[in-house]
């Protein structure tokens, strides 16, 4: 009998455990399932990443010196087209793409470093964020040649912005329930329906819409197709939805006989589910899933700086230990993406742990520094705390809710 074996069946009738499992090394022989199946291997950053880090830091220092942005006011949601154009000109967008499409042909680890630096420095990178993170890569892999040549270089130049057209009024977590319909008409498709919660649709040039083009089939994942929607063309209208703090970030997007040429399709007809899953792997894995309110942590440290208060030190030390682990986990996922693997479960884990961390920061900060947060406040800490508190609920919703992610993780662990 194995090492940690429970007593034999004679001694313990009905012990509901597989005895042999304790003799063998559980989890090692268990293949995918179990904790050994999680891939968070150490990643060595290439030299190019260190160089890029130095370059992007110098760029951001110059931006701040020129008074282009105030770090404490920003996250990856801050929409600043002028900043994006300068970042594009400096070569920080579309880093991994072929040079023929305006890219710099670097590894995704270099991109990881650049984006993490942007977030840590509180750069207003929201305008190009979605195009750089997911729409561009999606078009590069699955788009037609004309579209690639026309759109990708503009994204890389920081001149072309995207939105995500997945959610609908009756299709949130249950994305397979989308009803927006695309019907073929010769070389075009005609789209009718509505998308909702579409961030930046009012200031983006395009969105990628997930539409229904056929029967769902028994697994409910069939009959879906993705299209690039040009928001400047007739047949699509954007209506603002104000968020709880009164801000205008997301929208409703309505299609009325919107006509899209077939070569604006992304991926094959009926392959939309596969498309959207691969898009979500990009969407979930990045440093934006634990650095959304990093600037609040910075402001908190500034407020506590030089104090000799053990309670503050403990709370800060805890957050920093969490952050260090997350940075490492997220780097490991970037390494998996770089090797062309699909780290769906690992990405879900990073997002779940990362957004939990993001949501803890304001709750801890408010107890360490007593202040009444306000958006109209000269004090940087109070202003940042106000902003984060009002946005925190979205951290564990957008990009897949915490509950949906935990379901995915459980499946990845071999449950169900």
């Amino acid at each position: 009998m194995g090492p940690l074996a429970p007593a034999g069946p004679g001694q313990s009738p009905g012990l509901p455990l597989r005895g042999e499992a304790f003799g063998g090394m559980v989890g090692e022989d268990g293949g995918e399932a179990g904790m050994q199946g999680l891939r968070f291997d150490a990643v060595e950053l290439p030299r190019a990443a260190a160089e890029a880090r130095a370059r992007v830091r110098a760029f951001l220092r110059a931006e701040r010196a020129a008074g282009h942005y105030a770090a404490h006011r920003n996250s990856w949601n801050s929409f600043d087209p002028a900043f994006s154009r300068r970042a594009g000109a400096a070569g920080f967008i579309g880093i991994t793409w072929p040079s023929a499409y305006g890219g710099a042909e670097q590894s995704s680890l270099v991109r990881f470093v650049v984006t993490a630096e942007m977030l840590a420095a509180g750069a207003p990178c929201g305008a190009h964020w979605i195009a750089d993170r997911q729409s561009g890569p999606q078009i590069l892999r699955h788009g037609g040649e004309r579209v690639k040549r026309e759109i990708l270089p503009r994204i890389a130049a920081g001149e072309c912005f995207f939105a995500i057209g997945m959610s609908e009024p009756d299709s949130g977590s249950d994305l397979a329930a989308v009803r927006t319909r695309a019907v073929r008409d010769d070389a075009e498709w005609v789209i009718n329906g509505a998308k909702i919660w579409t961030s930046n649709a009012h200031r983006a040039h395009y969105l990628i819409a997930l539409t229904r083009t056929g029967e769902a089939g028994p697994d409910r994942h069939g009959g879906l197709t993705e299209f690039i929607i040009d928001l400047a063309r007739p047949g699509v209208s954007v209506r603002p939805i104000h968020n709880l703090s009164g801000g205008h970030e997301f929208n409703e997007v309505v299609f009325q006989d919107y006509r899209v040429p077939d070569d604006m399709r992304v991926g094959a007809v009926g392959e939309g589910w596969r498309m959207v899953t691969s898009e979500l792997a990009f969407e979930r894995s990045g440093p934006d899933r634990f650095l959304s309110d990093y600037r609040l942590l910075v402001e908190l440290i500034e407020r506590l700086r030089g104090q000799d208060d053990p309670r503050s030190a403990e709370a800060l030390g805890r957050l920093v230990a969490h952050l260090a682990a997350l940075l490492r986990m997220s780097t490991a996922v970037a390494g998996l993406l770089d090797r062309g693997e699909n780290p769906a479960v690992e990405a879900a884990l990073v997002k779940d742990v990362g957004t939990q961390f993001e949501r803890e920061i304001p709750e801890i900060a408010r107890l360490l520094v007593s202040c009444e947060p306000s958006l109209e406040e000269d004090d940087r800490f109070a202003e940042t705390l106000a902003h984060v508190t009002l946005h925190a609920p979205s951290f564990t919703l957008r990009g897949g809710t915490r509950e949906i992610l935990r379901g995915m993780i459980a499946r990845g662990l071999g449950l169900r």
Partner: protein
Amino acid sequence: METQEISRILLDQADRLFAQHLTREARAAAETGAWPENLWQAVAAAGLPLAMVPETAGGAGLAPGDALRLVRRSGFHALPLPLAETMLGNALWVATGEKPLAQPVSFSATPPTGLRGAGDNAILDGDAGAVPWGDVAWLLVVAEDAAGGRHLALVAPPEAALPQRRNLAFEPRPKRHLAGVRPVALRPAPRLAAPGLRPLGAILRAQQMVGAMERALDYALLYANERQQFGRPIGKFQAVQHMLASAAGQFAAATAAADQALEAWGGADVEFAAALAKARVGEAAGKIAEIVHQVHGAMGFTQEHPLHFLTRRLWSWRDECGNEAEWQRVIGARVMQAGGEALWPMLAGA
């Protein structure tokens, strides 16, 4: 052969060795506080206590990272021996230019003790605190002389038995006072011991905890898939799935924190790495122990089920060599000193 390959083989061998010798009887006997001599002999015969000792000094010459992975496996197996302690002790002792020690070695994680007199007349003054296996093992302590010089002192096992004191996993943790004790040998502290032994111990415990968590979670996953209630495996219930998913997140974060510490071993800032590791892993240990017990129901609360060999260790190890709060304060103090903008380069690299 690649060194990576060699270390993998060694880890596999260690796994098999632990599995073979850790019978239920051996475990039960060890928990009474009796020294498991046969088990120790088997582990020593495989050369594991010398894993971190260079080959030129007769050891296995594992890279620190690989040696610490072996420590992690000892945690996975809930090995009731001072293997991690002896690996560290030998690495330190050999670093002073001495030969490795043949006996089990332990260490004191208290701040450096005082030292009076010099050379052969030196006498320790202080308290070694709770010493793992302190009644049978040789003891290494860092001692500081009046001029502030740091030494590594080797102390023989006590002549008279110490009052029995065990941690929650019933591993021996007797208290040892060193006032007036004459060390067997005294050497200038090697570089690795410069920050004292507490951070090194913290890194060992962090590795052991990651190993123990892994196995506890493997048990919980197995159980969730096998235990039936309401006509289906409990793992089909979303509430159970979410508990385990959140435990997996804790495990992944703990592993990442422990990994950065094994990379930092022997480097310039072992103390900071130890702090990150012990703070993060210790927190995960408590949460994971809670979840695996919840998933196991009453079965996991029995002596019969092996889960407690792991969870009782997690509850002990998270407090040994400094609990989360202590190490969080170390991190926090540094961060508060350096300021907000200094944090990112501290973590991501200058």
